[in-house]
């Protein structure tokens, strides 16, 4: 950004700092009470009590997740070991004649090393250096592979968390998205994911947490369901026991 541009942004920040307290005071004034600066009691925080009691066994969770994910047009498969998972991805890449792929720099994917048996594929591994290039690579990729931190059985959702080794583009820009997840990361309901995120990160969350439920879709043209409008139109959830 130019020096002049930086000055404009700084001016805007100053303007906001000046306006801020007046903005809040106006709200308190409208509410006919003094300004509140300490946390009020929040008795209705989160889901209703009965919901906290809802909990499924691991088998039921896997089953429900797969059913929900499939009902939205996603593909779900279960694997007992890493070798069969790798073979499945290799076959998919070969069938689709994939040329470009991109993946997280994740221990599980590094161990799997899916690219070793795919000589025709150019695999890009996400990293913290080549910034612009990675976005272009992701946009040109046929398949993106991520290891997702969680899945939610109740809604058929996978949760991808951004980080130095885990770009958000991997689950967004390629034609096909593969979410690899471990069976024990499938939770019954969203609240458990929220609780675990809070446990891990406190209130300092990673920049991008994406809850993904099936392929990109739209019904904006005469209510016709269209798959793959901006995001991936083909999505696979591959569960490793």
């Amino acid at each position, binding site marked *: 950004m130019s020096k002049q541009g930086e000055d404009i942004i700084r001016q805007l920040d100053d303007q906001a700092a000046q306006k801020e307290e007046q*903005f809040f005071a106006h709200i308190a004034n409208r509410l006919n009470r003094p300004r509140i600066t300490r946390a009020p009691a929040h008795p209705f925080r989160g889901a209703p009590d009965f919901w906290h009691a809802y909990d499924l066994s691991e088998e039921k969770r896997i089953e429900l997740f797969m059913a929900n994910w499939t009902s939205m047009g996603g593909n779900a498969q279960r694997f007992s070991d890493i070798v069969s998972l790798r073979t499945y991805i290799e076959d998919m890449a070969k069938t689709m004649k994939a040329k470009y792929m991109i993946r997280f720099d994740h221990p599980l994917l590094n161990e799997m090393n899916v690219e070793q048996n795919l000589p025709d594929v150019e695999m890009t591994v996400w990293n*913290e250096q080549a910034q612009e290039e990675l976005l272009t690579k992701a946009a040109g990729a046929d398949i993106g592979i991520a290891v997702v931190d969680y899945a939610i059985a109740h809604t058929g959702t996978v949760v991808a968390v951004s980080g130095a080794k885990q770009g958000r583009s991997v689950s967004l820009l390629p034609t096909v998205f593969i979410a690899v997840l471990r069976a024990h990361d499938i939770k019954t309901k*969203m609240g458990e994911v929220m609780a675990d995120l809070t446990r891990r990160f406190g209130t300092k969350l990673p*920049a991008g947490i994406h*809850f993904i*439920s099936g392929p990109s*879709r739209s019904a904006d043209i005469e209510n016709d369901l269209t798959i793959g409008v901006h995001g991936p139109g083909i999505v696979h959830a591959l569960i490793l026991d």
Partner: protein
Amino acid sequence: MSTTFNPTTTIKERARISLNDEFLRNAVKYTTEKLRTSKKLASDELGNWEEWRERARQIRLHTIAHLDYYLSEFVKNARANGVHVHFASTAREAVDITLKIAEAKGAKSVVKSKSMVSEELHINHRLEEIGVEAIETDLGEYIIQLAGETPSHIIIPAIHKNKQQVADLFSEEAGETLPPETPILAGFARAKLREKFLEADIGMTGCNFAIAETGSMVLFSNEGNARMVSTVPKTQITYMGMERIIPSLEDLEVMATMLPRAATGQKLTVYMSAITGPRRPDDSDGPEEMHIIILDNGRSSQLGDPEFQEVLNCIRCGACLNACPVYRHVGGHTYGWVYSGPIGAVLTPRLNQDTEKWGEVAYASSLCGACYEACPVKIPLHDMLVYIRRQKVEEGHTPASERMAFKGFKYIMSNHRRFKRTVNLGRTGQKVVVRDGVITSKIGPLKGWTEYRYAPSLAEHSFRDSWRNLYAELEGSTPDMSSDVMKRLEEAKKKQGGRRHE
């Protein structure tokens, strides 16, 4: 108010145009029916819908009642994550801030995901005035942008366009003739907008929820365009209505349970993104700079007003549109401003703070209360519509003839003898116009009614005439009034000044 929108036609004319558009009527009917059925199935499948609804309402009520606290927490935490937060009291101020950011960035193009707030600002036109291209990337919004129109449904903005119309618009954009087939049209939009995403300088988003404790903003989308806009461009600008706050990540579970189900019957939208500040130093994608513009634009005027404060609880799902018998006939454009349906009929006069110009949209309702039944946060919209009508009367914005009529009504109704005489007079007078027991002629004060339906004639014998006989018949068959009720009624009568009614 700073809105530049000024309807040149009356709501009656706008409704007439909509009612004469057969495709529109069928499309609106089909779509609202589909969304309504899906919502019903989804809420049944979830179970305990009323408990969830009540919880969602409580969270929204609590947040709005403590809005200064939660908003300032949000601002503090968003800043800690590196967000530039701005405050705009009016649409004008929000536009100014946006244009300055665009200038600072030397921006040539902006890609937008859906934001109702941005419609309040007419930001696309403002950006174009300074030579910045603004592109809507939600498929429906893209269609109506090419057509130069405004959304007709909050969830499905291009509900009123058929495939051929879309094909014509896209063909012009493509420079070649595209067939009216959905996969081809969607494919064109994907390719075209992909280019736009990759070359845009700024990504603009709305904000479904903002989380006070973490400083995150949350977006719901199905197409993935909201993710594109918040991932690819170097600068992100987010518009946020000042009431979009929820306290915590836990509360998001409740909103995520209600919003998609109430809107389309989905268990969750395809994407729900919680974005917390710009990219971290070691992240290789996401915006480098992030601005959140918090907008008032008439919202704070609802605070502290017992009749309207709850309208700020709205989570913009559109369920009230799908349930409304008026919306289902006329669609969104009849309402004339950004928001349509029952929520629009309340928000339009309230946010614009102009009952004279906008009060008439509050009459686009049968006051049946279906909107309240449908609302996932239980906003009593039908009551609010009555309050707006009352305000319009109190502020003297009703026609002189209507005021005269009600003066006459008051004069007649406040005295039973006068009332009886008038009814007798009417019974004689109506003989000229009654055919087969109904009045069909469109004359005098009856016109407003008889233009669209028959008016019933006055009965030969009125209920009041028959009362004495009825009373005698009923005597002994009804239980006696309990003594304390009788006492209360008599006291109330005394308080009234003991006016006699016979």
